[in-house]
């Protein structure tokens, strides 16, 4: 996993978010304020620009650039939360990047979100997608799986985690204002987290295929 891998991940995440922008906004309209799609689209577009303007020379740098850009350009709840996640991950990431190293850094990112947002699993937030993904990564490392397999499992865990927010009652963020009425809707932040992890798995497929070439 070189710098290019991380740049591709972030770019693919941006593309997926662009494509799913309206779905994210609709999820946010149901239990929030209908801006999550616009927020993340704006943010990841800026991330792509920043990665061109200041091409990173190390994986950690790519993540730090992404995190700082999200904090500086998004606003809202998701800007600081995702921004801090990428920054914490970047700070924790060792070069060269190994799967165990990635898993540990990812967990540092999740912890940063939990700390900043004071949310716990079950609160119906992005944590409910990010935490299962992190657990899946750690488990994959323990089982000695390949990066591709690990990222695939993390993506699936995030997807499942996001869907699992549907029956939850929100206790953090804007959706908590709805009380019982937040039940029955997928959390937009969890859904965007699943997209970002989907991008990760997608890039790993590309890498894996490349290695086969």
């Amino acid at each position, binding site marked *: 996993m070189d710098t290019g891998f991380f740049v591709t991940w972030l770019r693919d995440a941006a593309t997926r978010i662009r494509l799913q922008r309206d779905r994210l906004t609709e999820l946010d309209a149901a239990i929030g304020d209908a*801006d999550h799609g616009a927020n993340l689209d704006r943010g990841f577009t800026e991330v792509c620009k920043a990665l061109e303007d200041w091409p990173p020379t190390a994986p950690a740098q790519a993540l730090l650039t992404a995190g700082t850009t999200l904090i500086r350009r998004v606003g*809202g709840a998701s*800007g600081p939360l995702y921004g801090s996640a990428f920054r914490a991950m970047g700070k924790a990431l060792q070069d060269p990047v190994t799967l165990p190293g990635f898993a540990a850094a990812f967990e540092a990112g999740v912890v940063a979100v939990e700390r900043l947002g004071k949310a716990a699993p079950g609160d119906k937030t992005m944590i409910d997608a990010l935490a299962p993904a992190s657990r899946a990564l750690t488990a994959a490392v323990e089982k000695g799986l390949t990066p591709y397999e690990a990222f695939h499992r993390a993506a699936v865990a995030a997807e499942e985690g996001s869907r699992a927010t549907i029956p939850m*009652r929100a206790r*953090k963020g804007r959706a908590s204002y709805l009380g019982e009425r937040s039940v029955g809707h997928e959390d937009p932040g969890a859904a965007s987290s699943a997209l970002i992890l989907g991008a990760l798995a997608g890039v790993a497929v590309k890498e894996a295929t490349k290695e086969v070439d």
Partner: protein
Amino acid sequence: MKKLINTAQSVVEDALSGMAAAHPSLRVRERVVYRASGPRAGKVGLVSGGGSGHEPLHAGFVGYGMLDAACPGEVFTSPVPDQIIEATRAVDGGAGVLHIVKNYTGDVLNFELAAELCDDVQVASVLVDDDVAVEDSLYTAGRRGTGATLFVEKIAGALAEQGAPLAEVARVAADVDERSRSFGIALTSCTTPAAGKPTFELPDTQVELGIGIHGEPGRRRVPMASARELAAVAMEAVHGDLPLTGDLLVMVNGMGGTPLMELYVVFAEVEAFIRGKGARVSRSLVGNYVTSLDMQGFSVTVCRLDGELTRLWDAPVDTPGLRWGR
């Protein structure tokens, strides 16, 4: 959706250009709105901000006797730390800066990040959380900040103008928040420029109770009722949380799409309700002040005044959105 905009992406930028062109008393620079007169040495600086779409809040309240700077974010999205840092540094007249923050996760996080990074400026912060529609418990992000923001900005602004020190301005600002409660009712959803369709669908026969100012759905829906009944619902909610006694500052606020005529109809009912409880409307405000784009509906905000707060409320203010005594 029909909106008077150029593009959904440029709406905040374009509106700020309009504000700058319309108000020579303001200066707009890098998404921050300042008093053109600049900071005053020795005066505590007041910075507020939040998502756009609530106009005249906040940028319309920049001026003598109120804010020194406002940081408008994208529509319904809190501003980014950079804006807040810029604003904080720029308005510091040496006496420190008060951040007036509405209690939303996004606003709280971004203002916190900014405050951390402004370690060269003495920063205090007050959290506005007046909306009784939201339970203030471990199971929520706490109450939302809505109408009381205007009260806090006006009263803290008057105190700062008089030269009070930061700690005192922060204390009174928090006191105003504690004495204030709001409740809002929507007749229609708003439509954000980016989404291009109403955030929620509300049939012609129903209203949404306990809404915030971002098109978040409320706590429940009930059949549409008369102004008297709706005013009573809002006032009972407020009264249940903060008993109405003594002299009150009362705002009947439109959500952006409600004409003034209807707000006056509501105000008449609110005033009668308050009289019925043996309290008194001592100061009042009726109009579109803390809005939610084009939403139709209203909110009521009540603050229990004392002599000192009344004096500060009455003090001169000279902003695009609120002006008297000067």
